């Protein structure tokens, strides 16, 4: 009987908290150079109030540098960081009033769970009663109400990360920075904690800037994502936008899997279609692309491709031969050799009745005209 009541109490609180808006964050030409080496090229970025904003990129792409500059650990070489409109570049970390969650939790091992959560409140010289009330509320939000007197060493990794969340948010910061917060957890716990953090975001209402190198994690959790590479923002958008219309070869291959084809020639074919010839010698059909400049590549997602022994009537049909087939959780992954020795990756959901096409079989690959994605390739 106790269980539903606590859930109800929590959702009631969540509704009340959401009204408090998160901060807006605006980066203007922010950059970081070490000598002649640019860790981050001049970058503009706007994070909206209350947004869950993902920052992803391979290691060395500048995402941690960017986070360090916002937190105040790394002095920028130029540019402005506006938090709710005020430039915070000149402020030391302890005057920025934002919360941060670290990859290895960074809990104070010599303090109890409650003392850890109370730490930022003590630093702000809040009254004892106020501190106790806030600690109790945070423990409830992260569902660790019985754990106040434990030390961090007595908690599991997931519990420690929940304490770190509670500590970062206990003083109601309007911006929370998270630096690979799930990086140290194993896969199952990661997925559970993804939901936990989303729920936490709804409960506290703060703007969250979430750094990860895991593109699935970013896509699952974020309202919007910025993809970084070599110190540059490659593209900003909702996860689905980035996946369905990548603006560059890097974004197309970084987010999910992609079959990429170099384009040799593009010509108009009525009605409103493009006839695309690839350098592998394939002829594909695509929809009109509004801002396609001279050079382009074609991206076809592995799950958009049908595989069959007979040629269908789709807009794009190419023939090939199955090289190998692998079971992965929930799907079959085919590698198919097509004209010119090119390997095409195909992923089909695995259902009980699905028949597996054997290795060596001649097959036809087909996909819809909308699934031939044209990507600018500057």
């Amino acid at each position, binding site marked *: 009987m106790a269980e539903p009541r606590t859930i109800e109490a929590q959702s009631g609180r969540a509704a009340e908290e959401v009204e408090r808006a998160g901060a807006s964050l605006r980066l203007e030409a922010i950059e970081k150079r070490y000598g002649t080496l640019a860790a981050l090229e001049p970058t503009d970025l706007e994070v909206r109030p209350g947004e869950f904003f993902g920052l992803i990129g391979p290691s060395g792409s500048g995402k941690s540098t960017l986070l360090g500059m916002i937190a105040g650990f790394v002095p920028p070489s130029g540019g402005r960081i506006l938090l709710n409109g005020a430039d915070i570049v000149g402020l030391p970390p302890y005057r920025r009033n*934002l919360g941060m969650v670290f990859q290895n939790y960074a809990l104070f091992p010599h303090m109890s769970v409650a003392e850890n959560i109370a730490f930022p409140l003590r630093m702000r010289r809040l009254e004892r009663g106020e501190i106790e009330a806030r600690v109790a509320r945070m423990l409830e939000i992260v569902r660790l109400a019985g754990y106040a007197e434990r030390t961090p060493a007595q908690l599991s990794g997931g519990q*420690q990360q929940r304490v770190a969340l509670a500590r970062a948010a206990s003083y109601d910061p309007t911006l929370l920075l998270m630096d690979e917060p799930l990086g140290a957890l194993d896969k199952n716990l990661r997925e559970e904690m993804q939901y936990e953090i989303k729920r936490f975001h709804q409960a506290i209402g703060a703007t969250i800037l979430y750094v990860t190198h895991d593109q699935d994690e970013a896509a699952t959790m974020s309202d919007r994502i910025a993809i970084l590479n070599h110190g540059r923002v490659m593209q900003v958008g909702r996860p689905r936008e980035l996946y369905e219309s990548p603006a560059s070869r890097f974004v197309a291959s970084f987010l999910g899997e992609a079959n990429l084809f170099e384009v040799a020639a593009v010509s108009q074919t009525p009605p409103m279609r493009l006839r695309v010839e690839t350098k592998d010698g394939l002829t594909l059909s695509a929809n009109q692309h509004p801002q396609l400049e001279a050079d382009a590549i074609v991206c076809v997602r592995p799950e958009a491709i049908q595989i069959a022994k007979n040629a269908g009537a789709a807009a794009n049909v190419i023939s090939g031969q199955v090289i190998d087939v692998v079971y992965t959780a929930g799907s079959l992954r085919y590698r198919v050799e097509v004209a010119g020795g090119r390997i095409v990756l195909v992923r089909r959901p695995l259902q009980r009745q699905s028949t597996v096409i054997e290795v060596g079989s001649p097959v036809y690959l087909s996909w819809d005209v909308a699934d031939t994605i044209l990507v600018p390739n500057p």
Partner: protein
Amino acid sequence: MSGTLGNRIPSYALAAFVTLFFAYLLLPSLIIVPMSFSGQSFLSFPPSGFSLRWYQGLAADIVWRSAAANSFLIGIPAAFIAVVLGTLSALAVERGALRWSMTAMALIVAPMMLPHVILAIGLYPVMLDLGLLRGYLGVIIGHAVVGLPLVFVSVSAALRSYSPALELAAMTCGASPLRCFLHVTFPMIRMGIAGGGILAFAASFDELMLALFLTGTGTRTLPRLIWEQLNDFLTPIVAAVATLIFAFSLLLLAMLAVFGRATRSMQASLPLASAEASARG
């Protein structure tokens, strides 16, 4: 034929070797203990007879008592200076963004490698010029130089035992550098500071070369007095002093072991306890 090295060496042979090894390490120090209870009036081994008169003589002798007092009056301030400077330099090298941190580290640790006689010869004319020769301050300064690298090494190890992210976390929580040190850094490294302080004190308590060069009759330490007495009178009273110093050193070692264990258990409890917690949860 297929046994490992450990299986092929008979266990009694290994036990014998280990016993011999420890005897080699400890016997020369332990030999002094029975000698101090000797009934004879000259230093000899094996001692004959049993008496406590050398300890009684020691307690009554103002020269030995003032030397013992001097050892503490010099050792404690020297250890204190070494603790303050050693801790600050460890913080600078481990946490500061120093461009020359490796060079700085080498310079700080150098007195540990350098023969004390070189340091003593170097300090002698300086202390003479400053008028600090044969006073307390000169030898305190000299012993602080000897103790500083010991504190530095001990505190550096403590700083390396936890992630600097702890201090970054404290700062994002709103802690100024001073409060960050008081609430996070100091509690994390206090065992290292205490251990380094004990080592620095023991180094001063034990030190002869600088004491020979820098102290005078009014400020001479126990090691210096032992040295002088060995030259002049070879009575078991020296063995009695040495036995007392030995016992005191054992006490310091025990304190170090306790501090060491406290530090380790704080870190080692992490994986064990979290496994326990997940089993419970």
